[in-house]
């Protein structure tokens, strides 16, 4: 493997310049960018991590802030200035209660199976609810659970974190309190309790029971 050696590396630009580079790239992108994406476009030897830390300090408290979204970074306008941007506000339909509850359960209990969601909500989860949350991009399938039947699990995505302004799922509001109270434990249900599916006929009359429900029903009109 001769000749594989790249061109003798130039020294990387100084940190001020690296900071400018990261600033420009993140400003230009509407999507969060991962460290690796940044590094890939910067000169060899650059250190986007240090540049990001410096930028974050620089923008703290500004009208635009550097936020972390999972493994990625993005500039977002400060939350308190939303009122100025009403014209930009995308017409967003309100999630139905079934959808918001399901989303919260996925976020706080992830990875979680459909059966567990049903157990918690006490009703059958319509396919449409989860499908729609997946379509919006806030929920995705996780690994299959290593239990009989190998059921699929669901987890929240980076887009979920981005939308709700969370750096990571650990930052979910009230997470530690819920955990301390044992409310996130996977408690086996007590035999005999007639909840969810085993109640039989649980599909009947459930507002989100029908597989054929148009996705429209997921959202309440605001």
């Amino acid at each position, binding site marked *: 493997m001769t*000749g594989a050696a790249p061109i003798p590396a130039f020294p990387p630009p100084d940190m001020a310049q690296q900071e400018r580079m990261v600033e420009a790239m993140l400003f230009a992108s509407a999507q969060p960018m991962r460290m690796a994406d940044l590094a890939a476009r910067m000169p060899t030897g650059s250190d986007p991590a240090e540049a990001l830390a410096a930028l974050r300090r620089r923008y703290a408290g500004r009208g635009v802030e550097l936020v972390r979204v999972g493994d990625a970074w993005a500039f977002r306008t*400060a*939350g308190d200035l*939303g009122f100025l941007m009403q014209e930009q506000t995308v017409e967003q339909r309100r999630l139905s209660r079934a959808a*918001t509850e399901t989303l*919260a359960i996925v976020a706080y209990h992830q990875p979680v199976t459909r059966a567990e969601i049903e157990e*918690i909500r*006490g009703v059958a989860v319509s396919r449409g609810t989860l499908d729609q949350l997946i379509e919006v991009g806030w929920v995705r399938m996780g690994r299959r659970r290593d239990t009989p039947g190998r059921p699929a699990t669901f987890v929240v995505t980076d887009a979920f974190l981005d939308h709700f302004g969370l750096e990571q799922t650990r930052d979910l509001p009230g997470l530690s309190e819920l955990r301390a109270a044992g409310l996130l434990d996977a408690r086996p249900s*007590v035999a005999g309790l007639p909840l969810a599916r085993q109640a039989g*006929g649980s599909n009947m009359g459930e507002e989100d029971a029908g597989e054929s429900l148009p996705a429209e029903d997921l959202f309440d009109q605001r």
Partner: protein
Amino acid sequence: MSRPPHLTPVPDLPEPAVPGPDALIVDVPGYDGPLDLLLTLARTQKVDLMQISVLALAEQYLAFVEEARSLRIELAADYLVMAAWLAFLKSRLLLPPDPQAEGPSAEDMAAHLAFQLERLQAMREAAARLMGRDRLGLDRFARGAPETVARVRRVEWQARLIDLMRAYARLKTRDEFRPYAFDRRDIYTMEQALDRMRGLIGFAGDWTSLAEFLPDGWEGSADRRRSATAATFAASLELAKQGQVELRQGETFAPISIRRRKRT
């Protein structure tokens, strides 16, 4: 939602003008199943869910179902199954524990129900807190004019030194294998033979063996002798055709002799 999903009025009955003293019935369409209804009923006890009286809750629920029945409102099967189970739980809670009974005790079942209610309540609150956050596209915004990133395809050529050397080696050896480039040192052409014979034929007034005409240095190897012999023979045929020489052969495979044709 045009229609209460859980309570379906019997068609031929006029709508109940007043839903009854309990305002709960008005809200029935909003219930998300029996657990949700139980949670709402539990809240009317105005105590922490952990301290809730499951017995009292069971009675509330059963009263609710009774009321719906009296209003001739059909409840979905889930609600009736839950009612039956709560009636069973209530009787178990009221009776002294049966040491023979298998499975979870009535207290365990009651505790688990209370846990489920509390957990559902906690998830409701969590969902509300989540929705109350500064949300992207509502309160926080991404760059409105993102710049497009041009994709540039760069080709990296792969060639190793060994490839280069092989290529050069190939060039330097290829010639030996060209069909039209074989070594001509071992070929004696008819033109060469003609030239040689034209010079020699003047001295050969008498019969002379063809072998005598072979050039020096071509007798060594068989290849060279064969080539020279064939070329010289072909040249002698050409000279005979031109009428310059005569050929003679005593018998088959005997030596061929040649002499200058006498001019008449």
